[in-house]
């Protein structure tokens, strides 16, 4: 007679749960969305073009730095993991929309500073400080 099938052993080999998403991935996506918003506002509202363009440039750099850290920690399986966000609708009040976006982004980064590894704490501190400074550009 053939050996008994080790049923019990099979039960212990559960597939390991996928790792939780990297919290910085969400911040990178937010930075890309903010850059797209700022770019749309810069095009549609000439009076804001200079400030909105600086915001778009800086938030793009935030997205690049954050995504690089996400990819360093967990190399992406496909190279096309970061889709560009859809072109956003241009809000009537461009200043208010950008101030809101930057305030949310600053808080997102600042809230994570306490709990992340050291290198990330430095990076997120600079992202938060950058968002706070970009609000000054709108005043």
């Amino acid at each position, binding site marked *: 007679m053939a050996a008994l099938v080790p049923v019990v052993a099979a039960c212990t080999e559960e597939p390991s749960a996928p790792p939780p998403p990297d919290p910085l991935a969400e911040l990178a996506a937010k930075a890309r969305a903010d850059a797209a918003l700022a770019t749309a506002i810069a095009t549609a509202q000439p009076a804001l073009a200079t400030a909105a363009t600086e915001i778009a440039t*800086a938030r793009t750099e935030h997205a690049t730095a954050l995504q690089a850290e996400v990819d360093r920690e967990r190399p992406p399986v496909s190279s096309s993991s970061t889709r560009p966000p859809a072109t956003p609708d241009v809000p009537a009040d461009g200043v208010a929309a950008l101030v809101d976006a930057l305030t949310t982004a600053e808080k997102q980064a*600042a809230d994570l500073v306490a709990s992340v590894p*050291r*290198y990330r704490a430095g*990076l997120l*501190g600079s992202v938060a*400080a*950058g968002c706070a*400074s970009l609000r000054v550009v709108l005043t």
Partner: protein
Amino acid sequence: MTSPTPPPSQGPSSLPDDAAQATQDALGAEHAALWVYGLVSAFLPADYGNALQEGSNAHRARRDATELLLSGAGQSPRSAEAAYVLPQEVADEPSALAVLVVVETDVTVAWRAVLERTDDKTLRAAALGGLTDAAVRATRWRRAAGQTPATPPLPGTPG
């Protein structure tokens, strides 16, 4: 009372050498910033008075809090120097604004370095506050000086 009791510190009761050194460096940057704010006021028109006062007050408060945090961690806080070497001569409004930008930028770099050298939540919160406040003031001074872009994308990044 000749021996006031220090307020109970919420900060760390000790600090590893690298975190202590980075915090001392940040304190040194706050001392230098205070000195520069005092120096440049003579070269700036009166309409900068509020911004100068606000900056001085903020750096003084940050200096005091940092000294308290270091003392609470068993460290002897670094004293201010009698004078500091300026990155350029201050002789007029543009050079005064330029030096304010430099000294605030130095403060952002010093506090980011603290963030990268400690796991202590209280010290990280202080460092984030120091970094953000200095970055915002640096942005205001760059705007006053007409510099663009008004802020680096990632304030506090060395180099």
